[in-house]
């Protein structure tokens, strides 16, 4: 293991040097190398110019075939466009498109996230999910899991509960029809994205209201997902003012537990709206909101409800400069009747971001944000937080400079985030990213970043049952991440991405034996870990009618305690992860409006933890058959078809299931 890590380190160095040298091919002068490389360069630029010529002729020809009305719907970029976000150039980003989601038969956001090869997604029971990237899918707790190293945003709104520092996946039921894409970045996104983006960032981006005009209605029924209905209508109020409203509900039945019916069925009703006002060329305004209400058995009632509203104003100064100001309010309420615990969280957030180009070679993005989380809990006999009401304030600012070292060849991005939080005060999260693009089909990138995970309320405020002496000395968990990636189009219609990483974590949460605590244990920061892994993903459009996308992940991790008081089992408590996992999605578009899709997955076994049993490795297969007739689509979906039931994270068994339905788009 250590040997491999050293090798990996060396590899990182070699590649970094490689990139440095490559600049010299054009910058330095006088040697034979320079002349040879200049010739190569000339050849490449020539071939790419020729290719570009062909491409534009066909694009222009295609555009000419469109009506003017259709032309007005073509998405355009300005020639002097904003430089590509470095998070896209030099990071392990995977994008799930609206088509990918629809073709997979996913009905809810966590199911859609299974399509990102760089995520670990496990269904815990009927309503709960454990989702993480690059390990650290932590033990389940009270209707969720302690997985806390992922930052998730829906249209710029951070979905974060300070209760345990993670996400309540059961209540994030965006209408998938209106999702434009989901960007999944594995690896620290510390610089722009803020705290807790230790192992990754998920960014759910919905379509603007002008892209969702008209009626969408869908209804389905089945064995596990018993019923699901969704309606959306989009309209235009004025030439530049668009809106949409939607509503949906679903009922999902029980999983199995020891081969008999569990009691974790649930249902949810949700509605919302979005308004986009393109006031002038330079100013646009978005207002959107959602509200939901649900009832879950866990095994007694858990009542959830929430509301959120967000406003965003964007002002464009020029093609490469804009200012974005955003404010939102989010209310999340959960009433756990089985343990008599309530959590009522109100989040108020205001942030601004400004980007501009400087001296031709620099592109600066900077911003600042304020967040107030007003959290009230009703303490229960089994879970007591010291402050039943707490105002958590988070102040943050960031600055990033994307520097073009050699145009169209080598880009360096330096950035840092500064923040101040309730528990650990000031935190700094810098990163450096280098992207080397020898031609448009090859990108090699490397990054070194530092990110932190700040303690959650359960870590730092919990006085019972784990402790009556509160550990007020908890510090942030830190990671230093080294990443190296390569993206290539080896031939037409195929795109491959490989990313490798080596992460060192310090001050990880540990469960320590403490004689003074009534339960005998207390949370400390007495663990360290090293992880390394490889993420591979492939997109292959074999024919116009056959698309394959898939991926493979390997993860290796090694925990180490820094104190003899650390409870054995503390390591597995923090990371219940498969060593290997793979997925493959195949989409056939057949004649007469018929589509046939399959998603296969393999997940390695999970070790037993203090709270969960050993989970054997499993294969699963989902199939979807759909027929489009005029404005209607009829579909039937079989999920987890390979066995009558299987376990993914805990003791609960996810049953094989089937559902079918009809969708209408007018």
């Amino acid at each position: 293991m250590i040997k491999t890590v050293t090798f990996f380190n060396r590899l990182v160095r070699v590649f970094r040097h490689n990139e440095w040298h490559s600049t010299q091919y054009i910058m330095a002068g006088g040697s034979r190398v320079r002349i040879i490389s200049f010739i190569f360069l000339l050849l490449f630029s020539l071939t790419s110019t020729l290719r570009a010529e062909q491409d534009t002729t066909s694009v222009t020809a295609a555009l000419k075939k469109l009506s003017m009305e259709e032309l007005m719907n073509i998405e355009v970029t300005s020639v002097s466009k904003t430089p590509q976000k470095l998070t896209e150039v030099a990071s392990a980003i995977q994008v799930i498109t609206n088509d990918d989601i629809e073709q997979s038969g996913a009905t809810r956001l966590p199911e859609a996230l299974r399509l990102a090869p760089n995520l670990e997604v496990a269904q815990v029971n009927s309503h709960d999910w454990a989702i993480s990237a690059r390990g650290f899918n932590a033990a389940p707790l009270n209707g969720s899991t302690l997985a806390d190293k992922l930052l998730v945003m829906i249209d710029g709104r951070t979905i974060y509960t300070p209760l345990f520092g993670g996400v309540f996946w059961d209540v994030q039921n965006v209408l998938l029809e209106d999702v434009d894409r989901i960007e999944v970045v594995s690896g620290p996104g510390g610089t722009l994205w803020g705290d807790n983006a230790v192992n990754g960032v998920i960014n759910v981006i919905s379509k603007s209201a002008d892209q969702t005009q008209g009626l969408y209605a869908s209804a389905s029924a089945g064995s596990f997902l018993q019923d699901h209905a969704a309606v959306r209508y989009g309209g235009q109020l004025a030439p530049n003012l668009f809106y949409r409203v939607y509503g949906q509900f679903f009922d999902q039945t029980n999983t199995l537990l020891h081969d008999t019916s569990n009691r974790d069925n649930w249902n949810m009703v949700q509605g919302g709206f979005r308004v986009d006002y393109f006031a002038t060329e330079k100013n646009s305004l978005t207002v959107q909101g959602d509200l939901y209400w649900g009832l879950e058995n866990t095994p007694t009632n858990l009542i959830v409800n929430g509301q959120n509203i967000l406003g965003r104003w964007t002002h464009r100064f020029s093609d490469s400069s804009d200012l974005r100001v955003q404010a939102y309010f989010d209310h999340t309420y959960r009433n756990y009747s089985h343990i008599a615990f309530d959590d009522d969280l109100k989040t108020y957030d205001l942030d601004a971001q400004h980007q501009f180009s400087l001296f031709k070679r620099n592109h600066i993005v900077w911003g600042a944000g304020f967040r107030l989380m007003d959290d009230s809990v009703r303490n229960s006999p089994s879970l007591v937080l010291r402050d039943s009401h707490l105002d958590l304030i988070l102040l943050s600012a960031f600055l990033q400079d994307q520097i073009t070292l050699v145009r169209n060849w080598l880009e360096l991005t330096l950035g840092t985030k500064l923040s101040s939080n309730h528990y650990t005060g000031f935190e700094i999260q810098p990163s450096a990213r280098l992207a080397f693009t020898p031609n448009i089909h090859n990108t090699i990138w490397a990054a070194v970043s530092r990110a932190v995970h700040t303690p959650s309320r359960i870590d730092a405020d919990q006085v019972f049952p784990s402790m009556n002496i509160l550990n007020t000395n908890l510090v942030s968990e830190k990671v230093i991440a080294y990443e190296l990636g390569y993206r290539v189009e080896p031939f037409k219609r195929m795109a491959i991405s490989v990313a490798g990483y080596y992460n060192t974590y310090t001050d990880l949460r540990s469960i320590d034996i403490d004689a003074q605590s009534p339960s005998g244990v207390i949370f400390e920061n007495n663990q360290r870990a090293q992880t390394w892994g490889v993420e591979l993903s492939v997109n292959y459009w074999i024919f116009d009618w056959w698309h394959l996308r898939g991926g493979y992940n390997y993860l290796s991790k090694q925990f180490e305690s820094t104190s003899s008081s650390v409870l054995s089992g503390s390591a597995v408590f923090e990371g219940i992860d498969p060593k290997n996992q793979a997925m493959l999605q195949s989409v056939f578009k057949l004649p007469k409006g018929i589509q046939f899709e399959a998603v296969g997955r393999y997940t390695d076994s999970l070790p037993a933890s203090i709270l969960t049993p050993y989970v054997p490795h499993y294969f699963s297969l989902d199939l979807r058959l759909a027929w489009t007739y005029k404005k209607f689509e009829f579909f039937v979906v079989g999920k987890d078809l390979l066995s009558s039931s299987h376990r993914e994270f805990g003791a609960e068994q996810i049953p094989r299931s089937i559902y079918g339905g009809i969708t209408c788009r007018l």
Partner: protein
Amino acid sequence: MQTLIRSLNHQIDNTVKYILLLLIFVCPGTSWPQVNPVPSSEVKAVFLFNFANFVDWPSTSLLSPGEPFIIGVLGENPFGSYLEKSVLNEKKDGHPLVIKYFSNIEEAKNCRILFINLQSPEQLHHTLMAIKGLNILTVSDAPEFAKSGGMIRFFIVNNKVRFQVNMEAVKDANLVISSKMLRLAEVLNSEGP
């Protein structure tokens, strides 16, 4: 800095060089099959071509047989070769569509459609005055173009190309824009002063 670069240059390891070249050669590739946004200038070029078909020029200014229908660009050319591509082998009422570039408005008076790539209000005013009364459809990106007497102005909303039409200026030039095209445009107050 130069010394640093030079010293780094000397360190180039043959193996690394080889790997680098191999990478570039083994991976010729082609473009992503995904739909990428199109440059706005390309879409605008196709719009200009479309305008030729959706606007009627007065019968008093008929072109003689074989005479080309000229689409001109005044000022720096923002279209690259998109305009040439969009009018390739195209005709309007039997007249071949031809693209010409001008730096002086006096030379541009034979145009049927003129894209004016000038930004300052003074230059715009001067240019529009110089061709006042001629049957030229004037088009531009300039923010105050339609308001300063130009006919059609492109603008971008939510990454999509839109256009504004100044009806008064169009009527003054004796041009007729088809209702189909007008429905898609943002029409400036045609009552006017």
